[in-house]
């Protein structure tokens, strides 16, 4: 990597335990339709309540990849440069249920610096919940700081 990095956060300014600003991301049915179109994932469990219930889900659920996309914003907005991301992984443990009402659901994201690594990189562990329950497990990012 030879490109200059202009991350807002300096490696020397963080320590293990440093918390990222907590974030909340709303998600409603319209957001899921928009995401289906943009991502090409038209699985009806993400927009068709009748189908979702037929396959045993409580209601329409968000795309796991939508939740993954929201969660990393806690990190990319913290560093400023999304290109500073080195690694990102999640486990889809529980669906984000999105009811057909005026509110939809909310994805809440917290992040903590869990380790300081080589080359000015840190590992951030993410806690991602919706309706008070963890929806992603092992959600971790490695990001290069300034």
């Amino acid at each position, binding site marked *: 990597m030879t490109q200059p990095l202009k991350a807002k956060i300096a490696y020397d300014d963080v320590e293990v335990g440093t918390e990222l600003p907590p974030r909340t991301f709303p998600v409603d049915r319209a957001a899921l339709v928009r*995401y289906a179109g943009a991502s090409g994932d038209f699985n009806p469990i993400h927009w068709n309540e009748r189908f979702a219930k037929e396959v045993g889900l409580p209601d329409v659920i968000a795309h796991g990849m939508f939740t993954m996309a929201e969660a990393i914003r806690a990190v990319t907005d913290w560093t400023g440069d999304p290109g500073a991301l080195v690694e990102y*992984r999640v486990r889809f443990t529980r669906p984000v249920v999105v009811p057909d009402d005026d509110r939809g659901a909310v994805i809440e994201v917290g992040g903590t610096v869990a380790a300081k690594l080589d080359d000015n990189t840190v590992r951030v562990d993410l806690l991602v919940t919706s309706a008070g329950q963890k929806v992603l497990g092992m959600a971790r990012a490695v990001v290069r700081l300034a």
Partner: protein
Amino acid sequence: MALDQSFVGRTYPPTAPYEVGREKIREFAEAVGDDNPAYTDPEAAKALGHPDVIAPPTFVFAITFKAAGQVVEDPQLGLDYSRVVHGDQRFAYVRPVRAGDRLAVTSTIEAIKSVAGKEILDIRGEVHDEAGEHVVTAWTKLVARAAEEG
């Protein structure tokens, strides 16, 4: 029926290149509600050292998952896709995907496991640009529930 272990290590031919467009990146960024200017404003991206607008970190999944279709739909493997859920997802980035990239994906079956009646399939997608440079690797774990009896 358990998936054939002999498929572990099988690599499928690289996909035809996917050309990453600025407006597709913009559409994706808007769909996830992310207003980081590096995704839409070439000048903002250049100020960060990127030659053109970059894509949000999970954008490339649309490309690697389509490529994984070669595996998922391989009749010889015989995966019942109607029972499949996405278990885990991981990306390791050499550099961000950016507008103008022409990306080819090479998919490999990394592991096949049977755990408690579930079939677990790990697929690795190596993404290279037109110059053959490695851009990102995506690992996708798919879990197929056991077929019900009767």
